[in-house]
Every structure is written in structure tokens, then in C-alpha cells.
């Protein structure tokens, strides 16, 4: 089960809240202070992308963020409910065509995420997409007997 689960209406003003909550939980989970800026930025990018997909698709469902504390690692999953066809299954003529502004921003968001996070998984299917990002955590100092 996720340590903290967050659901928010797909509105730009809530993305900041998601960033703040994610950074607070990451800090508590033992993610290195130096990496918290990256966590904040990456989760913001993932949420921004999800909000954009919900808004452009007219989807009223909330965006879902799971903050998962595990042994030696901390993961964030950002899920959207925007259906898309299987990856690589492009519409005829779409490949190599001009990207519109929205797609460009979407790509830039993903570029930032993959530039920041070493361990990232992006999946998408007919029921929506999921970005899972994982960071190592420093376990609390062992208590010697």
C-alpha cells in the first residue's frame, strides 16, 4: 500500500500542492536532501503532463499520485486516465509530421523527467498512463547494541 495517496482535480493550481506533498514525504522517507529539488521538479512535470492530458481529453476523473516508501527506495507513481493507443501505434502520417505546441510541451516534460531521474518507467494503455519514478533512500543510522 502507498505511504501517501493523493488525488486531485486536473487543474494547474493543484500541481504545486502535489509537489510540496511529494517533497515532504520524500524527505521523511530518507531521500537525500540534495535530490529533493529533483523529486519536486520530476513530480511536478509528471502531474503537469497528467493535468494536460485530462484537460485536453475532457476527462473529469482526478489525477492520482502514489508516494510509496519501500525498503531502501522511494517511489512516486503519477497516473492519468487518458486513454491512448499502444506505443508505436501511430496514426498514418503522424510520424515525422509537425508536432503541435501541446505535444512539444508534453515531450519537454518527459525530457526533463528522463534527464533528472535515473530510474523511470513510462507506461500507457487504453485505460490511461503511469509514470513511475524511483529514488534510493538512506536508511536511518543503525542502532548498535
Amino acid at each position, binding site marked *: 500500500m502507498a505511504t501517501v495517496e493523493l488525488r486531485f482535480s486536473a487543474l*494547474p493550481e493543484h500541481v504545486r500542492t502535489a*509537489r510540496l506533498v511529494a517533497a515532504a514525504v520524500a524527505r521523511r522517507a530518507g531521500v537525500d536532501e540534495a535530490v529533493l529539488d529533483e523529486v519536486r*521538479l520530476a513530480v511536478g512535470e509528471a502531474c*503537469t503532463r497528467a*493535468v*494536460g492530458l485530462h484537460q485536453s481529453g475532457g476527462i473529469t476523473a482526478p489525477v492520482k499520485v502514489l508516494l510509496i516508501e519501500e525498503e531502501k527506495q522511494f517511489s512516486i507513481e503519477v497516473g492519468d486516465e487518458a486513454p491512448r493507443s499502444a506505443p508505436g501505434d501511430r496514426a498514418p502520417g503522424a510520424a515525422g509530421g509537425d508536432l503541435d505546441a501541446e505535444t512539444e*510541451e508534453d515531450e519537454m516534460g518527459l525530457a*526533463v523527467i528522463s534527464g533528472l531521474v535515473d530510474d523511470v518507467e513510462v507506461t500507457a494503455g487504453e485505460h490511461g498512463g503511469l509514470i513511475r519514478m524511483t529514488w534510493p533512500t538512506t536508511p536511518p543510522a543503525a542502532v548498535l547494541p
Partner: protein
Amino acid sequence: MDLSLSTETIGDRTIVRVGGEIDVYTAPKLREQLVELVNDGSFHLVVDMEGVDFLDSTGLGVLVGGLKRVRAHEGSLRLVCNQERILKIFRITGLTKVFPIHTSVEEAVAATD
């Protein structure tokens, strides 16, 4: 924190001082400001990012949009930034090759291509 914007003119350059967080919620305000300046005939912009606490790809998109607009009038858009965490975002997206980035407003104002 919200976004704060103020402008100042030095010679033919217009300085746009930005403070706070530039994200999907606040970026439209910055976009409006840049569009307004270009529409009013300011084609040489210096965006001072020293007061920016947070910048994401939406903010980058707005800056790229601003650059496109001023270039259409043979203008320029220079950035002032010394913050490593902000500079990192320009580096990982390759935008350090697109924007001239300066360490001070004075340096940006004095710069010519």
C-alpha cells in the same frame, strides 16, 4: 508562492524581473507579459531569473515562445541566472545552447551578438 513580475527599461533593453515559481499555473502570466512587451515594441528582453525559486518545462516553453517572438522582430532574449538548480534544467533540455545566459543584468545589458 505566486509569480511576481516587474519591468524596467535600460537603453533599448527591457528587463523583466521574475520572482517566485514558474509552473503550469503561473506560466501563463509570464507568457502574457512577454507577449505584451513584444506587442508594445520591446524586442530586446533580459529576463532576470535570480528571484525564481522553481522553474519547470512549462516555464521553459514560455521562454522559448518569447524568444521566437522577439526573433521575428530581429530582437533578443537573454537570461540572467546564477542558481545551479535552475541552470540544471536548461542544461538537461539542451536550452543552454538556445539562450544566452548571463551572471548579471549589467552583463546582459552590455552584451551584443
